[in-house]
C-alpha cells in the first residue's frame, strides 16, 4: 500500500473546480453558506480547548473552578506567568527540552538517512531480512519494554542524564523507511553518472544524493523534533533531577504540587506549546507532508 503520498496542499487554494452550469448557481451559493457555517462551527469546537487554555492562563488566581459560568477572564493578568517563572525553573526545563530535542533530532536524522540509503541503494547480504526486522519494531510502544529499558540505562549509569533520554529516543526507525522511499525515487542515471565519474559510495551519498533531499531532511528534522518535544512517558521515567526535567515532566510536577494551581498549569502549558505552534505555522507544508507520508504523530 503506497497510498497517501500525494501532495497535500493544506493551505493552498489550488484545487481544480468542477465547471458549473448556470442553472445551479443559486443552489451552489446556498450550499456554500451552509458548508461555511458547518465548517466554522466545527473549527470553533476544535480550537475552543486552546482558547480555554489562554483564558485560564491569563485569568486571576482561582478563576477556573469557582462557581459561576464565565467564558472569558474577568480581568487579564500576567500573575500566573510571573508565578511560574518565579517559583519554577521554567527556562531550565525549556532548555532541557531543547537540548534533548536537538540531540535526538540530529542523531536520529543522521542515522536514519544513512540507513535509509543503505536499504534503498546498496546491495549487501541479508539486506531485506534486516529491513523487515527493523520495520517490525516500529510499532512497539515504549510501555512494552520500559521496565527493562529502565534497568538497562540504570546499569549503564545513564539514569537521570540527558543521554538516558536521548539514546533510547534516537533508537527509532520511522525515519528509515521515509528516507528509503525518498532515495528510491531518485533517478538511477544520476547515481550512475557519478559512479562513471569515479565517485565512491560515500561521495555519491554526500555530494549527489543528499543535496536532492532537502524536503526529506526538513520533514525528518521537524517530525523528530516534534516527537521529542512532546514526548512524555520516557522522560518521566528516565529523569530524576528537577534541574533536568523537560517541559512535559515539569507540567506533571506542577500538577503534583499540593493543591494544584490550574491557572499556573495553563500558563505553563501555553509556554510549552508555543514553540511547536510557531514551528507548525512556519513549516506547515513539511509537517503535513511528513504526517501524510509517515503516519507519525
Amino acid at each position, binding site marked *: 500500500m503506497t497510498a497517501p503520498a500525494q501532495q497535500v496542499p493544506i493551505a493552498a487554494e489550488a484545487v481544480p473546480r468542477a465547471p458549473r452550469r448556470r442553472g445551479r448557481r443559486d443552489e451552489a451559493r446556498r450550499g456554500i453558506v451552509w458548508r461555511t457555517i458547518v465548517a466554522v462551527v466545527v473549527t470553533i469546537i476544535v480550537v475552543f480547548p486552546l482558547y480555554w487554555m489562554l483564558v485560564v492562563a491569563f485569568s486571576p488566581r482561582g478563576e477556573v473552578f469557582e462557581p459561576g459560568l464565565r467564558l472569558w477572564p474577568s480581568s487579564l493578568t500576567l500573575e500566573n506567568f510571573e508565578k511560574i517563572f518565579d517559583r519554577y525553573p521554567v527556562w531550565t526545563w525549556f532548555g*532541557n527540552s531543547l537540548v534533548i530535542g536537538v540531540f535526538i533530532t540530529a542523531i536520529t536524522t543522521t542515522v536514519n538517512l544513512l540507513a535509509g540509503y543503505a536499504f534503498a541503494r546498496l546491495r549487501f547480504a541479508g539486506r531485506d531480512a534486516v529491513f523487515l526486522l527493523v520495520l517490525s519494531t516500529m510499532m512497539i510502544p515504549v510501555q512494552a519494554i520500559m521496565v527493562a529499558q529502565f534497568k538497562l540505562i540504570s546499569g549503564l549509569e545513564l539514569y537521570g*542524564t540527558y*543521554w538516558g533520554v536521548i539514546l533510547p529516543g534516537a533508537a527509532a526507525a520511522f525515519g528509515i523507511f521515509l528516507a528509503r522511499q525518498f532515495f528510491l525515487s531518485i533517478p538511477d542515471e544520476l547515481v550512475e553518472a557519478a559512479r562513471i565519474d569515479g565517485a565512491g559510495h560515500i561521495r555519491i551519498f554526500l*555530494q549527489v544524493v543528499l543535496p536532492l533531499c532537502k524536503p526529506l531532511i526538513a520533514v525528518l528534522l521537524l517530525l523528530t523534533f516534534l516527537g521529542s518535544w512532546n514526548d512524555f512517558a520516557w522522560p518521566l521515567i528516565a529523569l*530524576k533531577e*528537577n534541574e533536568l526535567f523537560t517541559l512535559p515532566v515539569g507540567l506533571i510536577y506542577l500538577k*503534583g504540587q*499540593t493543591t494544584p*494551581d490550574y491557572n499556573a498549569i495553563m500558563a505553563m502549558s501555553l509556554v510549552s506549546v508555543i514553540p511547536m505552534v510557531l514551528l507548525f505555522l512556519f513549516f506547515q507544508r513539511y509537517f503535513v507532508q511528513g504526517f501524510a507520508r509517515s503516519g507519525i504523530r
Partner: protein
Amino acid sequence: MARTMRRKAGIAALAVTTTALAGCAGFGGGGGGDEGDDTLSFTTWASESEQLALEDLVAQFEDESGATVELNVVPYEQMFSNIDAQLASGDAPDVFRVDYGNLGVYSSQEQLLDLSDAFSGDEVDAFTPALWEAVSFDGAPYGVPHQTDVSALIVNLDMLAAAGIDASTLPTTQDDAWTWEEFADVAAQLRTALPAEQYPFVVNWQQGGTPRWMSWLFQAGGSFMAEDGTPTIDSPEGAAALDFTRSFFENQWVPPTSTPAGTVYADSLFSEQTTAMAFVGSFLVPDMDYFNEFEWTALPMPRDERGATDLGGNALVATAETDQPELATEFLRFMVTEEAMSTFCAATNELPTLTALEGDAIEFAIRPDVMPVFVDQATTIEPEDVRQLTSPAMAEISVAMQRELEAAFVNGQSTEETLANLDAAIAEASGS
C-alpha cells in the same frame, strides 16, 4: 557539498549552544552520591512552602559546615520509583525524605544508614517516643523523625452559616469534639441545605492518602494488625468503620470523585467550594490560605470510642551506601535541632517531633489561629497506632486497601467481603 557541510555545522553549532544554555550537567554520568568530598545530595518532594523552608535551612547548614548540599525536589508521585531505581543502580542520593510508611520498606531491606551511634540516650529521649519508634527497625534508628502532621476538619464558615450552622456551636478542642453521631447530624443538615453539586465534606484518603482511612478504624476502637503481623481488621470495629465511611458515599455527603482511587484531592474540592468541610493535614494550611477566598477555620476530628487522626509527616534518612556517612549524619542532626525544626515547622504549618517543641512552642507563620486544633489533635495518636502505620508491610497494604475500599465504596462490595479481603492482604503483606 559545501551546503551540506554548512548545514551540519549549523546543527552542531545549535547543539553546542543549547548545551551551553542548559549547562552541561545533564550529560554527566550517574549523578547522585559521587560528587566531591563535602557535597551531599538530598532528594525530596516538597510543597512550595516546604521548598522555601528547606532551601533556607540548607543554606544555613552550608554556611555552618562549609559543605555543599544539592537539593533536588521531585514530584511526589515519582519520588519512590526514583529512589528505588537509584538504590538499585547504586547511585542513590546521600539523604532523602521518606514517609513513615515507606521508611519500613527501606530499613527492612538494609538500604539505610544505621544511626545508632549518632544519637545518645538523652538525645533520643528528646523525641516523641512513638515517632522515634517509627524510624526504628529491630531496635536501631534508620533516620530522624523530621516532622509530623495530622489531619483535622477544616470548615467553610460562609457555607456553614448559609446552612444555618452557628459558628459559636462548633467544637474547638478534643473535649468537645463531635461524636460520629453529631458529625453525621451536621453532614445531614448540610446535605439538606446545599445544592446537589455541593457536598457536606470530603475525606483526604485519595491515592497515597489511603491509609488515612485507618483514622476511622482507630476512632471505632479497632486495629488492623497485631504485633506479630496477624491481621485484626476483620472485627466489629472494622465493620463499624467501614459501614460509617461507606455511608458517606451512600448519603452523598462526599463528592463521588473523592474515592480512595480518585485523582481529585480533598483540599482542591474544599478550596473551590465544592464541599463545606474537609479533612486535611496541617501542611495544607499555607495552600488553603493562598487559594481560599472565604472564611474558614479548623475543628477537631470527630471521635467514636476514642479520638484518632492519621500519622502524617516524614523522616529524613541517609542511604547505607553513602560515601559521606559523617556529613550525612551531621546534616540529619542539624535538621532536627530545636532551632531548625521550629523554623521549618513554623514556615510550613507542620508539627514538630521534639517534645520540647510540643504545645504552643512554635509560632506558625500562617493562620496561627487554626494551629492549636492540629496540635491538640496530635495528642490522639497512640503508640499502638504508630506501630501499625509504620510497619514495613504498610506500603503493600495501602495498595490493597485502595483497591478494596474502592470496591466497597463504588461497586457495592459487601462489608464482610471487603474486610475478609483486607484481612488476607494484610496477612500476605506482613508474611504472617
